[in-house]
């Protein structure tokens, strides 16, 4: 998987919150604030607790999703601009207990307290049963810092 543009990778590596949209059964957008994780393989990863699993049913029905990073407090938007990423999502839910733990180092880089909370997962057990959502980007829209006009568009689909 090819790497993403530098500004997009920088945003994904630093952002503490992103808007994540799935489409429900009536093709209506349903938006969730989520923490994006990036490990450098060109895909964007999210982990969703089974408590908030409605979005997982939506993804199974329609894998087309979008993710944007726009919050200047929770992301370095002032330096790298804002971004919207469209793509397809897949779900890894064979082992909600430990199947997502390989993302813990990436999560801990953004929230250093997370390993301690996971160690005490008995306090909030269902929250820590999590499913991995992997987004393969197809198109990226990048607005440079301070820009709100037409974005730079990267087409990552095959043949694009």
């Amino acid at each position, binding site marked *: 998987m090819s790497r993403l543009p530098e500004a997009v990778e920088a945003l994904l590596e630093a952002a503490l*919150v992103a808007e994540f*949209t799935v489409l429900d059964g009536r093709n209506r957008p349903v938006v969730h604030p989520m923490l994006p994780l990036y490990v450098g393989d060109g895909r964007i990863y999210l982990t969703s607790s089974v408590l908030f699993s409605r979005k997982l049913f939506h993804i199974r029905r329609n894998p087309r999703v979008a993710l944007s990073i726009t919050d200047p407090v929770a992301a370095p938007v002032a330096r790298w601009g804002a971004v919207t990423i*469209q793509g397809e999502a897949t779900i890894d839910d064979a082992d*909600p207990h430990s199947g997502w733990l390989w993302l813990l180092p990436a999560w801990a880089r953004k929230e250093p307290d997370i390993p301690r909370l996971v160690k005490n997962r*008995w306090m909030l057990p*269902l929250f820590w049963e999590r499913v991995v959502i992997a987004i393969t980007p197809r198109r990226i829209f990048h607005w440079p810092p301070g820009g*709100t006009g037409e974005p730079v568009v990267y087409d990552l689909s095959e043949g694009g």
Partner: protein
Amino acid sequence: MSQPAMREILSEAQRRTAEHPFAVLVWVDEAGYPMHRPGPFEVEEDGIRLRISDEPLPPDGAPVAVILSRIRPRPQGGYEGRRYWTFHGSAHRRADGVAVRPHRVSGWREDERPFLALCEGAVPQAQRYFAFLSRIHGRPIRPRLPLAGLLLRATRAPFLTATVIPVLLGAAVAFYEGSFSLPWLVLTLAAAALVHLGLNVCNDIFDALSGADAVNPSPTPFSGGSRVIQYGLLGIREMALLCAALYGGGALLGLLMVIFRAGVPLLVLGASGLLLSIAYTAPPLRLAYRGLGELAVALGFGPLMTIGAYTVQTGRIGWSPLIASVPVALLIALVLYVNEVPDRAGDAAAGKRTLAVRLSGRWRARIYGIGVAAAYLFVGIAVILRWMPPWAVAVGVTLPMAVSVGRSLARFAEQPYALIPAMATQIRLHLYAGLLLAASYLVSRWLGPGGS
């Protein structure tokens, strides 16, 4: 949603996101993908206008959503006061941007619905998802915890302070009177702890069977049970086995102490305590459902345990441990009472007539005030009458904690999660007061002659 209600929400969203430069416009593009377009925005009287005019934009009249959010990470981790709104409406393209007049709003405000409440409300969704996973993967998939964490949660072991204090107190009174054996103290602690943990598990089983825990909308880390059954971590059969093992272990150790140490008096005390703990929620007595739970807890974690520990140390029953146990009994009953306040909606729905369910309004805080005042007054009177050593007045240093809990009860009785600090404080109050009381007997023994 009515327009006035929508305007109020828009006005609040505008205030809360004043420092946030972007709203995010969301729609489904021609290729069938969701599309996000961030842009500066203004909240107008009946909608939101994003000041964007360059493509990509939604077609005029297309159904759209507008996201406003305020999610602020804390430097030490976690987030503060999270809130986000999704306004649903249609796009109207104008020369000055895209206007959206919303007809529906959804989202989350953490100050209105704390994160714990959000998680608890989503438990049925998690159960549905586990059932779905088990179906599609062709094998049972359920939530898990490491064994140590599972036992910690299922037995609610962190609440063992309720047992440690009366046992230490009984041994301290015995020490004051010239009798002490560390090995028997350890055995007493172990037996009492096992019975206490058995009570906790038994309580969970019968609250699950009655539905009290399932309908509780606001469990906290201190109330609402362990929730291991509701979360699917353990089934009722597994909990029953655990309960039997804990009670069996406690009874076995108790029997050893009866045979080799304290005889019939301890047998009577131990059997009474065991039966009381079972009767707390088990039929036919179900004391907690009849408004007698607080009394049962006061008796069990007060006189029964204190006198029992004293009897193991001295081989006899006496008035001195009974007197020492009174303030501790009152304070542990108040721990239960304060923890019952957030549970009262679920308890009432399940027919569990706790004191918190039966009281209303100001009396919830007043009863706490009366109970805690009685505990401190008893110590004062007992010291004056020389029923307790003079150093017992040291428990007075915990008075500010009691005041804090009382104020929280008066202020937050209708906000379960705002009571969490008060619940923790009441537990610490019982712990510190009990330790100070026990210490007063030890200090008095070291400094002067013993005897009651």
